[in-house]
């Protein structure tokens, strides 16, 4: 884990099948002191979500296999108060 700013101890999960965008997001958020978890598909996202308990999830809508809306639905079932940011494009 690279921490370039003083860690604030908060965890964000970023999910996108497109890795360039994913790493940009990770870098930007980490520079603000967040711990960033990344997943490139729905199942990984769900595993990380359950095992790491992020406070915020940034989800890409369109992904192969399991779409963002289904991932979000599953997550909301487990934590109804979870904030999710859905990226549509």
């Amino acid at each position, binding site marked *: 884990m690279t921490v370039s700013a003083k860690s604030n101890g908060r965890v964000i999960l970023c999910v996108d099948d497109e890795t360039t965008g994913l790493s940009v997001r990770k870098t930007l958020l980490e520079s603000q002191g967040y711990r960033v978890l990344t997943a490139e598909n729905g199942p*990984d996202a769900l*595993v990380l979500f359950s095992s*790491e308990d992020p406070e915020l999830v940034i989800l890409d809508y369109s992904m192969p296999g399991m779409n963002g809306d289904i991932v979000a639905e599953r997550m909301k079932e*487990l934590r109804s108060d979870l904030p999710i940011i859905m990226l549509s494009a």
Partner: protein
Amino acid sequence: MGAAMIDGPKSMIGSYDYSLVALSVLIAIFASYAALELAARTTAAAKRVRLLWLSGGAISMGVGIWSMHYIGMQAFRLPVPVLYDWPTVLLSLIAAIFASGVALFVVSRKEMGWPQAASGGAIMGGGIATMHYTGMAAMRLPAMCSYDPWLLALSVVLAIVISLAAVWLTFRLREERSASFLWRAGTAIVMGAAIPVMHYTGMAAARFAPSSIPPQMAHAVSTSTLGITGVSAVTLLVLSVAVLTSSFDRRFSLEKLEAENRFRGLLEAAPDAMVAVDRHGKIVFVNAQTKKLFGYERGELLGRQIEILMPARFRGVHVGHRARFVSEPRARAMGAGLELLGMHKNGREFPIEISLSPLQTRDGLVVTSAIRDISQRKALEEDLRAKAEALDAASDAILVADVDERITYWNRSAERIYGWEKSEAIGKVPYDLLRTEFPVLFEEIAKRRAEGGWQGELIHTKRDGTKITVASRWTTLEDHNGKPLGWLEINTDISERKRSEEGLRVLSGQLLHLQDEERRRIARELHDSAGQTLAALSMNLGPLESEDGRIGPIAAKAIKESLSLISGLSRELRTISHLLHPPLLDEVGLASALRTFLEGFTERSNIQVTLEISDDFGRLPRDLETAVFRIVQEALTNVHRHSGSATAKVRITRRGTQLLVEVADRGKGIRPEKQKAMESGAKLGVGIRGMGERVRQLGGNLNITSGGQGTVIVVKLPVVSASSIGA
């Protein structure tokens, strides 16, 4: 008197008032024109009204000739007063009308040759001459009238010749349907000329000698100027009416003719075979389509009996039907509900549909029939019926609903399964009629249906109120343009299967319960019996250990080893007993029992497990607590055995009546092919199957998600009785 005649041979000189002469010629021409018009109408008219037209024509012409004569006479001035004997005048009028009538009759005949023309002309000319000399005879004046025999003969010959010419022209004119006004006017002038030419020649033949013999004045009347004006006016009026009536009728019949032609054109172009017959069943018209349908050329059918187009066995009956139709003709479809057959020239019979329409024409009643070959439609209907029967034979309930969600088809099995008759179901909304309980939102099903199809389980209510579970398959129906027409729904009654599944579930539930009970018993046995024995053994041996110096070194070693063995055995026993039944679960509740279990697990497996469960979680029904404990136990066993993960996380949350259990690891995940096999239920390990069985037992569901970053098991369980006893 006679002497005076002889003695006084000097003739009286008559003079003419030329304006009246002109009027007389005009009236003659006008009368001829009217007569020509009426002659044409007479020919065109239907039999019934032909006599009417003929009479009208005869009267117009007769009155015309007659008034021409008397106006001509008025134009002739004699130095003595001239009176007329009115019965003779009337007689002359009758002669004129009769002659005109005969002439018109001749020219209105369908066919005319020289003999007819000659006799017609002769009668016409003779009539005119008769009229003239009768009119002359009606003169009452104090003078003797004698005739120059040559001029008299000439006047009669002229009358006949010109009439002949006029009759011939009239006849020719009639042939030319579109004869121009000029043509007709020309003929009228020739004919009109015959009358004055005859008249004035006849007048030239007359010699008036003064006579002292008083004329027979019994019925004599004078022809005053007023009288002549009246005669002219009435004559012109009569002729005008005749001309107007006839031209109106001409236009009307031209339109009728055009309409008839148009009608024929329409019949010709009709997609059906059109066959027209007269009242005797004789074919008078067939269109082009008739040949295609029946194989006969037009010429082979015209004039034949209509029965030629039907199989021989129906012909006799048909003649009777036909006669009845003629006696009461009205447009209708033929033989409603009957199987009608036509017969091709080659003898092939085929099903047809016929509609009849009667038409009154100049030639009498004509019945037109539109005949359509319905073999294809019959075949199609047959096919549809066969398909419908196949659908009826299906054991599944099959229904079709249109875009308005109204039932349009309901097969026999649907009647049997749901108890609703077809007639009751048609037009109803399926999910209203069946009080459908959907597993998901209807919108979701509608969306899937639109995308091609949906299938799943539905709960329906039968007519008698009982509920059944069906496996339902929905398919969207589209027309060839892809426009949705509705959907087809096939429902298989799986209530029976559901019931046996339910039975199986109860059974396996009981098994699980028994298993739990047995484990609890064994655990207790091990703890209470074997454990106590071991404790006693340990207590017995313990004091010996301290007697180190008093016993031999071999015995001392054996005692030491035995104590160690007892200690190991009791630890193992405790572990086994804990695994068999969570210690303290019943007593202290799920949270505490889990914490204790996890400590032992970490110790054994070296996997760091985080448990997230609220301290005031409360108590759940015993079965549920046991199930959750077992699920966590099983899931962690799998993590330990397969994942290679160093950490795991267990999270138990309760939201309302739902309990959520998540067990996540960061291991290598389940291989995709294994995952697929698991989804199909083929290759489930005993552990996962047991887990699934427990979850199903309690009406919940189990979801396993695995990827490159680990695996998460999510279990949702309903909390049936919301008991929340503080820990």
